[in-house]
């Protein structure tokens, strides 16, 4: 019988290989889809380990508003979560809210860097302006925020109703964000101060939002009783006591229209919301539409206002034309097309128009808007133009809070670079994504999302921490190596080497079978090259 003890290590089976394992961390779909650029996977991992303070620190590297976004963000992170098709998506927004609420109670005031001689003016105290102020101040730059309103927050305070975002929570979070900055209330640019007052600043960030309600362009829209929906929200959110006990018509299908309808209902109105297309085409966030539908608000689709009038006995009436859906327009949504002679009339006590908003840039002359929606500021006073950066709803981006926050953070980076005489290059995103196809679902068990409703959390029926930890533990940590040893254990060729920081393939012997990549639970390992099949 033959016994041999000489090894086969001379036989470099790596030459058999036609595809090669590649260890590389990838972006998870949640991070990739977060408009604010949050490291969601990172802070969920910290919550998993009950490191809430660290989670808060990581989250606020990208977004200083977790309590706000945890309530009002439209959460594209959740819609794209790889756990979605498995059982149910990670409730990222609620985790964000948990972290935000933790910070409101527990976060200690940050120690800020000493101020340099640099001064920046921020015009507009909405999420864009406030985020810019936050990241500028953290770079040691002095910030003065000007706003025409009494309180900071912009749409967050004066647009979004309190039942969606409590004013106390909002203002407490804003206080933390603006810590170390100066806020100048009731200062309207173009009236209370002008270009000349800005020239002493090293840079100016302009984020005055989009507040001018669009006209409906119909006869009678100026009749008394017909008002701008956004102005109505502003009155309510400023604390004005308004009672609506009659019939209310809200015209529009966006977030403003939904908030106006739901607010009017809460103030006692019998509300009908009229939209010219169908529910599918409504530009409002899906969640808002769901909530709208759950309330006793009448929805009238495929109807466009044609004329408003007050007849002799003082009754306010709106005549609507019936619509049908035609070909898709440039937004991809099907265009409403009038149906000849199909009309109906609704009477009302108040009519709110919420058919969109435009920025009010009347403080400047010579502003051009190009076809992509962006504004050209090159025609303004050149001394200001040279140091002007714009953001938030003034940009041709989707108008959302996380987009506004991201624009503010980017502006701060840009301004800081500008002041240092550097060229600003926006950070490149790692674009390799570990999507659902990279997840080996066999390694995960189905556990349904902790049944969290906003109400349960608000009313404290569930201890937040336990629920948050349970929810965080469901996260797959898509795209990163979690040191599970699968590749190491399953390689038929012992070609996986453990290193202090992870694993490495021994290419001398790896035959490229692909088992290691197939058994990598979270998709940090992928085969490169031709499929070995």
């Amino acid at each position, binding site marked *: *019988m*033959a*016994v*041999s*003890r*000489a*090894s*086969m*290590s*001379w*036989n*470099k*089976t790596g030459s*058999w*290989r036609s595809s090669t394992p590649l260890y590389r961390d990838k972006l998870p779909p949640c991070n990739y889809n977060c408009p604010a650029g949050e490291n969601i996977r990172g802070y969920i991992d910290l919550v998993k380990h009950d490191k809430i303070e660290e989670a808060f620190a990581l989250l606020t590297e990208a977004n200083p508003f977790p309590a706000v976004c945890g309530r009002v963000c439209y959460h594209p992170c959740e819609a794209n979560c790889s756990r979605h098709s498995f059982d149910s998506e990670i409730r990222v927004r609620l985790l964000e809210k948990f972290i935000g609420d933790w910070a409101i109670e527990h976060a200690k005031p940050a120690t800020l860097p000493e101020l340099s001689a640099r001064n920046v003016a921020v015009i507009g105290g909405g999420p864009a302006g406030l985020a810019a102020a936050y990241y500028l101040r953290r770079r040691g730059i002095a910030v003065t925020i000007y706003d025409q309103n009494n309180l900071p927050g912009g749409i967050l305070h004066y647009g979004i109703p309190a039942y969606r975002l409590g004013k106390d929570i909002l203002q407490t979070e804003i206080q933390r964000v603006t810590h170390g900055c100066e806020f100048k209330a009731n200062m309207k640019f173009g009236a209370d101060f002008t270009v000349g007052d800005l020239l002493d600043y090293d840079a100016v960030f302009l984020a005055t939002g989009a507040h001018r309600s669009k006209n409906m362009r119909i006869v009678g829209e100026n009749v008394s009783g017909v008002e701008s929906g956004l102005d109505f929200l502003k009155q309510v959110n400023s604390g004005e006591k308004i009672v609506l006990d009659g019939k209310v018509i809200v015209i529009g299908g966006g977030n403003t229209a939904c908030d106006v309808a739901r607010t009017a209902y809460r103030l006692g109105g019998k509300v009908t919301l009229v939209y010219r297309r169908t529910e599918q085409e409504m530009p409002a966030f899906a969640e808002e539409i769901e909530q709208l539908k759950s309330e006793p608000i009448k929805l009238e689709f495929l109807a466009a206002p044609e004329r408003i009038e007050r007849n002799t006995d003082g009754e306010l009436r709106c005549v609507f034309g019936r619509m049908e859906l035609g070909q898709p327009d440039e937004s991809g949504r099907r265009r409403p097309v009038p149906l000849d002679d199909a009309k109906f009339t609704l009477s009302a006590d108040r009519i709110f128009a919420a058919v969109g908003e435009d920025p009010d840039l009347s403080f400047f002359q010579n502003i051009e808007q190009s076809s992509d929606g962006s504004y050209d500021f090159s025609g303004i006073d050149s001394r200001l133009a040279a140091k002007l950066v714009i953001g938030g709803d003034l940009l041709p981006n989707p108008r959302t809070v996380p987009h506004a926050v991201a624009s503010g953070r980017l502006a701060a980076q840009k301004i800081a670079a500008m002041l240092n005489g550097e060229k600003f290059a926006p950070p490149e995103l790692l674009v390799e994504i570990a999507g659902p196809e990279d997840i*080996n679902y*066999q390694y995960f068990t189905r556990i349904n999302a902790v049944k969290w409703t906003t109400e349960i959390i608000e009313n404290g029926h569930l201890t937040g921490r336990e629920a948050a930890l349970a929810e965080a533990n469901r996260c797959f940590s898509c795209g990163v190596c979690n040191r599970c*040893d699968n590749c190491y*254990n*399953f*390689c*038929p*060729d*012992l*070609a996986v080497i453990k290193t202090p920081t992870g694993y490495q393939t*021994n290419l*001398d*012997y790896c*035959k*490229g*079978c*692909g*088992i290691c*990549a*197939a*058994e990598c639970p979270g998709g940090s390992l992928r*085969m490169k090259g031709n*499929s*070995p*099949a």
Partner: protein
Amino acid sequence: MTDYEFCAGHDLYGHMACPGCGEKILLRHVLDVLGPETIIVCPAGCGAVTDGIFPHSIAPVPFLHVPFGATASAAAGIRAGLDMSGREEVTVLAWAGDGATFDIGMGPLSAIAERNENILYCCYDNEAYMNTGVQRSSATPVGSWTTTTPRGHLKTEPKKNIGAIMAAHRIPYFATCSPAFLDDLKMKVTRAGKMKGMRFLHLFSPCPPGWKSDPRDGITLSRLAVECNIFPLYEILDGEKYRLTHRSQGLPVAEYLHKQGRFRYLSDTEKKIIQTDADQFYGLLVSRQDREKNR
């Protein structure tokens, strides 16, 4: 997870097995548990041929090549020799394919089982004679394509129930192991390793070329075989006490079958029969286990 790293310190690479071969995953983890005081007895088959080119071997312990049908008798002889020279602590590990075990080596196997020889017999089961080019064995599952059960003449006989055969010999320990369930595998090898007498481990061993499956799917298939009740994980003590060591998810067998070219020619009726067989077998194991509990 691994407590045992015996193989990590040795050159187990450079072997000649196909990409994705399950046998080498199994060998490494079994040896990790058994450690250096082991002698491997291996008959003709992939396990022997891919181990190395004489005089080279990947095995970190003595590796003895023996004739195809002689695994059990050779193992018994080595056992006797070791015992005579006072080396009772050395484990004799018979490492044989399904052809060598279920078919040609069955006589000697039955003999050492009947005599309760102190041997750990591992059958790595890739469900056909793979080394000679995929001929059917009595371990080949019903409905499978092989070169001797080609399309139109697929295998009609069900796989031999090796667990029942071993149990009928009342050996101290029988268990099934899957490379996808390494904790379970190591628990069983550890258990078997500590026992004396005849122990038999039935190891599920994916073979990409023989199964016409993607090499990357080996572990996935191993897991599915367990979760579809095609290859349940269980053990039998003293030929009597049945115990399931993994509660299966009871997934449809189709999930396992459709990933393998060897099952490509199955009709829906045949798939249904395989499903029923799988469910019945698992049900039988559950009832044997329950009977044990109620005693």
